[in-house]
């Protein structure tokens, strides 16, 4: 009797079939997202000069903040992976029976909403990548005919990404989209009566608990072992060359390389969704079901293929890889600066703009690396054929001795590709210097390099005071440098035919030189192809920063000798600030 009741009971309440594993895991990851997201929301501040800063604070200074962000980030990855797997499962299963309408539509709505949630969430940290992403998304929305431009303005809260982009995206990400997602999933309860669902859940509670526990444990373990990486703060002047979406958007990203925006961003995704949504009708006969299955698997397959080919292209793109190396160095430097001085009220972007080590290499890569090389700039961002001196150790003793070596002077690394290669310096002066006794050469090098008063040579300059004085005498007397070069008041500026050696390489000298190399003080009419930067493509402040970077005048130790030193200093200083 008892047995019979049990049997009857089990017939009315559906058993938890293996096909429900994925939805249960999905629910678990989504709950993790909501909870970790709420914790993050407590500490996040949406505005152009607090967003990155608050995320940095969460990652580095709030107890357990990094773990929360990891959990939130990796559960997003897992959710999107699982919903993809769920679609694949639906596709395979619809080979035999067409998918039912409401569950299928809810699943598709979830795919769209989850992707929208991920996309809006990606913008919130406001690092270089996030900012570029916001730009690109805005422009894709703006390309919609007629309505596009206004829609873009409403979503972005302005013509350019800024404060209101962050406030609006926060509302979408933290409130509106989750609300819509919950509404969509609750539609499932309309199909099955509430009691059946609760009964079914109660009966399968052990299995569900185990699956949830496994999912959450895996997420927790992964988040303990891996950290999310916040990029450098957005400079808010445009997109960065490292602009790439998260892995789940790479297929669309790659698609946009091949087809027009209207087709790649709207037509193909919409048509695919509509076709998938029509599977319950298409799947009424065998042929339709076969088509549905193949179509759905084909969509996922081509998405994978597109994503992988985007990845493969990036791996081979030397410019992109170099830009990534630069970004990594920037992140390190930003960390060091914050650990030393904290974040100023104007925000990290302003801080980064005023730091020679952050701004200098960028300015160099943009304005100088067309002709000059510098070891700090990765090869992919400099020109293959240099046509001006390598500036890696500008004005230090090694650099000066290289300039004074005839062979090096005429090599491509220095003046080999300029008209100075066979100039007076190479023809008359350098052969004489090469024949000079070693001690004389050493003294001249020390004297010339000391003119620059480089901060990192301060010690040896002080030590070699006598040698430097000797070198100065040699410069003016025996070697006759001052016959052509102006040097203090020894040569008249009107008589000087070569560049000024007074304070050669000091900040003042270097800034004046970069501003206008064509002035009489420097190359005058002998200038080869060094452009005038004054009031042109570089502002006075930028010239100051560039000069400070070339002279290695910045606070802290990073980017200096070896990377190991820099990280050591970083960990030491960070200990002071960490609670």
């Amino acid at each position: 009797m008892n047995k019979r009741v049990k049997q009857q009971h089990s017939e009315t309440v559906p058993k938890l079939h293996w096909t429900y594993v994925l939805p249960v895991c999905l629910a678990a990851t989504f709950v993790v997202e909501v909870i970790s997201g709420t914790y993050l929301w407590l500490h996040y501040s949406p505005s152009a000069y607090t967003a990155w800063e608050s995320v940095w604070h969460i990652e580095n200074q709030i107890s357990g903040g990094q773990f929360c962000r990891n959990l939130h980030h990796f559960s997003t990855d897992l959710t999107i992976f699982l919903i993809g797997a769920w679609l694949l499962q639906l596709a395979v299963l619809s080979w035999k029976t067409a998918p039912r309408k409401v569950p299928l539509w809810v699943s598709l709505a979830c795919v769209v909403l989850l992707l929208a949630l991920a996309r809006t969430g990606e913008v919130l940290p406001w690092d270089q990548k996030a900012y570029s992403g916001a730009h690109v998304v805005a422009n894709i929305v703006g390309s919609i005919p007629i309505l596009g431009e206004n829609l873009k303005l409403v979503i972005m809260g302005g013509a350019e990404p800024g404060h209101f982009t962050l406030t609006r995206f926060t509302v979408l990400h933290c409130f509106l989209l989750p609300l819509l997602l919950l509404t969509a999933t609750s539609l499932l309860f309309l199909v099955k009566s509430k009691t059946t669902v609760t009964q079914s859940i109660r009966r399968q509670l052990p299995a569900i608990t185990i699956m949830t526990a496994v999912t959450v444990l895996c997420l927790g373990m992964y988040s303990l072992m891996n950290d999310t990486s916040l990029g450098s703060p957005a400079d808010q002047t445009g997109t960065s060359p490292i602009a790439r979406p998260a892995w789940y958007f790479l297929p669309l990203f790659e698609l946009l390389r091949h087809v027009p925006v209207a087709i790649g961003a709207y037509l193909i995704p919409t048509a695919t969704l509509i076709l998938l949504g029509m599977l319950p009708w298409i799947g009424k006969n065998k042929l339709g079901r076969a088509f549905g299955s193949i179509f759905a698997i084909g969509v996922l397959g081509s998405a994978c293929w597109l994503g992988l080919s985007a990845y493969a292209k990036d791996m081979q793109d030397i410019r992109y890889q170099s830009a990534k190396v630069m970004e990594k160095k920037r992140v390190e430097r930003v960390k060091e600066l914050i650990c030393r001085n904290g974040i100023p009220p104007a925000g990290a972007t302003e801080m980064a703009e005023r730091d020679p080590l952050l701004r200098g290499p960028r300015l160099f890569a943009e304005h100088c690396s067309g002709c000059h090389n510098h070891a700090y700039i990765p090869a992919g961002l400099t020109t293959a054929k240099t046509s001006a001196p390598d500036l890696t150790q500008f004005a230090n003793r090694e650099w000066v001795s290289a300039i004074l070596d005839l062979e090096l002077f005429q090599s491509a690394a220095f003046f080999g590709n300029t008209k100075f290669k066979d100039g007076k310096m190479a023809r008359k002066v350098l052969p004489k210097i090469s024949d000079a006794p070693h001690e004389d050469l050493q003294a001249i090098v020390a004297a010339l390099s000391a003119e620059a008063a480089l901060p990192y040579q301060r010690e040896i300059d002080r030590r070699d005071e006598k040698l430097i004085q000797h070198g100065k005498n040699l410069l003016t007397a025996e070697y006759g440098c001052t016959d052509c070069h102006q040097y203090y008041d020894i040569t008249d500026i009107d008589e000087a035919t070569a560049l000024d050696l007074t304070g050669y390489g000091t900040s003042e000298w270097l800034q004046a030189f970069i501003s206008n190399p064509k002035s009489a003080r420097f190359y005058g009419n002998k200038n080869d192809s060094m452009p005038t930067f004054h009031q042109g493509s570089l502002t006075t402040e930028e010239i100051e920063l560039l000069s400070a970077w070339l002279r290695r005048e910045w606070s802290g130790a990073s980017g200096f000798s070896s990377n190991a030193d820099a990280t050591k200093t970083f960990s030491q200083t960070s200990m002071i600030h960490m609670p």
Partner: protein
Amino acid sequence: MKSKQADEPQERRGFIGKITGGLVAILALFPFASGLPALLDPIRRKSGSAKWMSIAPFKSLPDDGLPSRFPVIANRQDAWTTYPKKKIGYVFVAKEISGEIKAYSASCPHVGCLVDFDKSTEGFRCPCHNASFAKNGVRTGPENPSPRDLDPLETKVEKGEVWVHFRKYRLGTKEREGIS
């Protein structure tokens, strides 16, 4: 008689119910409507950022005929913050061998990433979706995602300064449609 008595209040209840329902709906719409002007405010603000901007002294342009990137500097307004004298964008300016000044917007017409000028290939390249352009802004390559050539900007030289009419175009479309 009995049934009529029972019906009357029911009808009245139905009528009253409809009215209250309608009122509630209007009341519920009210807060939604009240926020609309604020929501749509960005549309009101979009107008007029196209301007003649002084870019660089004429003398500072390189003579090799190749374009170089110049920042456009102006006060930038972001909601409540005014950034004085900030970069608000970039333009490429070239002094051609003929002496003519040409300028192009630095935003790729595809989806608006900033393009680079590569001196070794003498062409522009977009780091996002690999659109490429010749030094005169014309699209190159067999597979180019950009729907049109780089957007040219008007230029003039006044008192030794190069001026560029800095404006924005709608992106991702074949036709060039100014949006500021």
